[in-house]
């Protein structure tokens, strides 16, 4: 039931402008590849493991191979042809053998032509198809488990973070959280990972404020959650981050290990990790295609803007970003029901009527994206060491989520301003959420924003400002808007940022069977 009486023409206009603003960036994304897209391709083709003999520590085989290919024949044609050509040429049984040989300096990569090219393409396509089949099987398996064990009994789903830095402790915390009512477990990554241009290997125990995202950690946690899912009688979803310099690869690993949701925002890496904008948009598109294939819900990161910009002043930038994220996602093949667009309860609680302003913003998102599983993020910026007050604020956050029909609730922690959550914080937080959902579950039926009241007026105002801003972005270009500090006050010029040297303009004969298969997906 629509409560805000939004003008459908204004809404349509907003979507149109977003599409227009996104267009040049999509073109850019299609015209380039990146080292990580190429590595992701090889991961789909079956390369796993790392070179443990390297002096700088473990180097994943995919990095060794892609770096070498780049050196030998460039990446503008894609990595698939040189690699599968070399495999056949050297008559090696597996890609791992090829990688080892590469490390030993025994392989010289070249771009095959003629029949060699056809053969290499076929072999590559076959290998990658096998990889995608694993992804498909995981998706089907998830569907089966959901059918068997069931979805959470109610909306919003409760999303909890674990962040000990040690996968084994994470498992303890995740299991307990699930038993206490969590529906989704997110394993936060170690602070440094997003800037690594490789994906670490194996089970890890020494992250800072988070645990490394590795294929093995994914596997361990998914297995633990499968176990606890059975115990609690509902399918517990697992989340990680497809972001940073290895976004495409992590998306692939998520598909291979049956993760269920991924943090994946079109601009987060640019704004908050100072990653090169072009690199990000290219990696984004590929990773979203993988998510679409894997049936993984993406979570976008608009909440972050409100930690660096003011949640009232910048409310419309959230709306603009949601519209852009939604467009980029659709373009990459993600349907609405996989669009966990983000937004957050971050208004300064000292502001008069702050709670009602939150309701206005949250309701606006709800009514703009009625079919998307919106992800509602708790207060962080205005949390303080007063954990009692923080506990209260988190309760009102949940209430706002409930009144405005949010889909996924990231459960707030009273220790937000103090430490990464304790075991007990999570338990207390779930008790908090449960009280609110249980005690006021049906209150939505009694919530009718006054037609000309503060909430309705505010929502209209924010939408209006969003349309205006989108107009300006269409005129100036999205990359310029980002450079100007439009989002989260972070100024990121298109030519700056990390990982720019990992972007490669595609040659005309660029070939990537993974990209082709994903592009062709229904």
């Amino acid at each position, binding site marked *: 039931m629509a409560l805000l009486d939004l003008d459908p023409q204004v809404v349509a206009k907003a979507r149109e402008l977003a599409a227009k603003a996104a267009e040049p960036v999509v073109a850019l994304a299609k015209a380039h590849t990146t080292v990580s897209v190429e590595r992701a391709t090889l991961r789909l083709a079956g390369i796993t493991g790392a070179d443990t003999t390297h002096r700088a520590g473990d180097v994943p085989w995919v990095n060794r191979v892609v770096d070498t290919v780049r050196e030998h024949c460039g990446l503008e044609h894609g990595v698939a042809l040189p690699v599968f050509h070399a495999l056949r040429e050297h008559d090696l049984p597996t890609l791992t053998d090829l990688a080892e040989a590469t490390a030993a300096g025994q392989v010289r990569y070249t771009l095959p032509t003629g029949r060699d090219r056809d053969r290499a393409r076929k072999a590559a396509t076959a290998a990658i198809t096998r990889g995608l089949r694993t992804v498909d099987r995981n998706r089907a398996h998830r569907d089966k488990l959901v059918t068997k064990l069931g979805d959470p009994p109610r909306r919003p789903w409760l999303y909890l973070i674990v*962040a*000990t830095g040690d996968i084994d402790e994470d498992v303890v915390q995740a299991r307990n959280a699930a038993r206490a009512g969590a529906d989704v477990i997110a394993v936060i990554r170690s602070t440094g990972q997003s800037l690594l241009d490789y994906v670490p290997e194996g089970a890890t125990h020494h992250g800072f404020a988070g645990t490394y995202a590795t294929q093995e950690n994914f596997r361990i946690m998914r297995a633990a959650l499968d176990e606890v899912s059975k115990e609690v009688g509902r399918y517990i979803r697992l989340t990680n981050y497809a972001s940073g310099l290895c976004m495409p690869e992590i998306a692939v690993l998520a598909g291979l290990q049956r993760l269920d949701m991924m943090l994946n925002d079109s601009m987060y890496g640019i704004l908050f990790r100072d990653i090169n904008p072009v690199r990000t948009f290219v990696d984004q598109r590929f990773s979203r295609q993988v998510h679409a294939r894997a049936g993984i819900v993406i979570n976008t990161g608009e909440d972050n803007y409100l930690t660096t910009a003011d949640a009232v002043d910048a409310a419309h930038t959230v709306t603009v970003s949601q519209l852009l994220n939604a467009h980029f996602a659709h373009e990459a093949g993600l349907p609405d029901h996989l669009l966990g667009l983000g937004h957050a309860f971050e208004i300064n609680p000292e502001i008069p009527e702050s709670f009602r302003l939150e309701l206005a913003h949250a309701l606006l998102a709800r009514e703009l994206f009625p079919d998307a599983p919106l992800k509602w993020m708790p207060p962080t910026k205005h949390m*303080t*060491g007063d954990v009692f007050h923080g506990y209260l604020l988190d309760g009102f956050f949940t209430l706002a989520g409930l009144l405005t029909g949010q889909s996924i609730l990231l459960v707030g922690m009273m220790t937000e301003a103090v430490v990464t959550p304790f075991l007990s914080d999570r338990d207390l937080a779930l008790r908090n959420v449960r009280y609110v959902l249980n005690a006021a579950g049906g209150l939505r039926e009694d919530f009718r924003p006054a037609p000309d009241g503060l909430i309705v007026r505010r929502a209209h105002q924010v939408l209006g400002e969003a349309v205006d801003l989108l107009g300006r972005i269409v005129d100036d270009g999205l990359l310029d808007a980002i450079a100007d500090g439009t989002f989260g006050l972070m100024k990121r010029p298109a030519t700056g940022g990390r990982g720019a040297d990992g972007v490669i303009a595609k040659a005309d004969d660029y070939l990537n069977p993974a990209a082709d298969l994903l592009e062709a997906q229904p």
Partner: protein
Amino acid sequence: MKRHVRPYGDTTGDGMVQTSFTLPVPAGPKADGAALQLATKMGIDPAMVVHSRPIGDGFTFFVVYGSVRHIVDLDDVRVVERDYPLLPPAEVNTALRRLLRRKLVVVGACIGTDAHTVGIDAILNIKGFAGEKGLEYYRELKVVNLGAQVSVPELVRRARAEKADAVLVSQVVTQRDAHLLNTREMSAAFREAMGERRPLLIAGGPRFDPLMAADLGVDRVFGRSTTPGDVASYLVHAVRTRKENP
């Protein structure tokens, strides 16, 4: 289970605790330092003063997080173990009949100026607590519930008149140790009035420490979340013990 444990924040052995308190000092860096000193004396090291807020001019409220040095030795934990079996009502009745050949008389009261009867009523009234019927439900128990704010002399008089086997007193108000003072006054009065022939004395209430029985001069102390069954089973045990070691 390990013998030695430490508090658990998010990693085994990290020792993390949260604490809050008010110091009678004006807010400021000196106050934060004072809070840190206190936390350190409590064994929290390193301690983080994560919140400090003035209350009026002369007080500051703090929230502190940190890791306590202390190690809990589980072998050293003293608890009042239930040294008797939990019996269902039927078995309580059978046992009592066999032991006494008459009904056991229980007199209950909130003594002193305490008027919180919900707790003792939960133990005595048929309605009971946590799904268990109260002592009135037991055929072999005669229950006399004197209600609230019963003075100690009045309690002794009524216990004598009813020939009480057991006297159950409840104490909920603890400010200025009211519960301890009243209970000690009560046990002293019974000792004085009846010496060795005094009834079983049982005290209960949410803030009692069951370890304090001897100190309070009573036979047993029950804390929060006690159920009627706990008490009935204890009565059987105590009557039996008294009979066996008169």
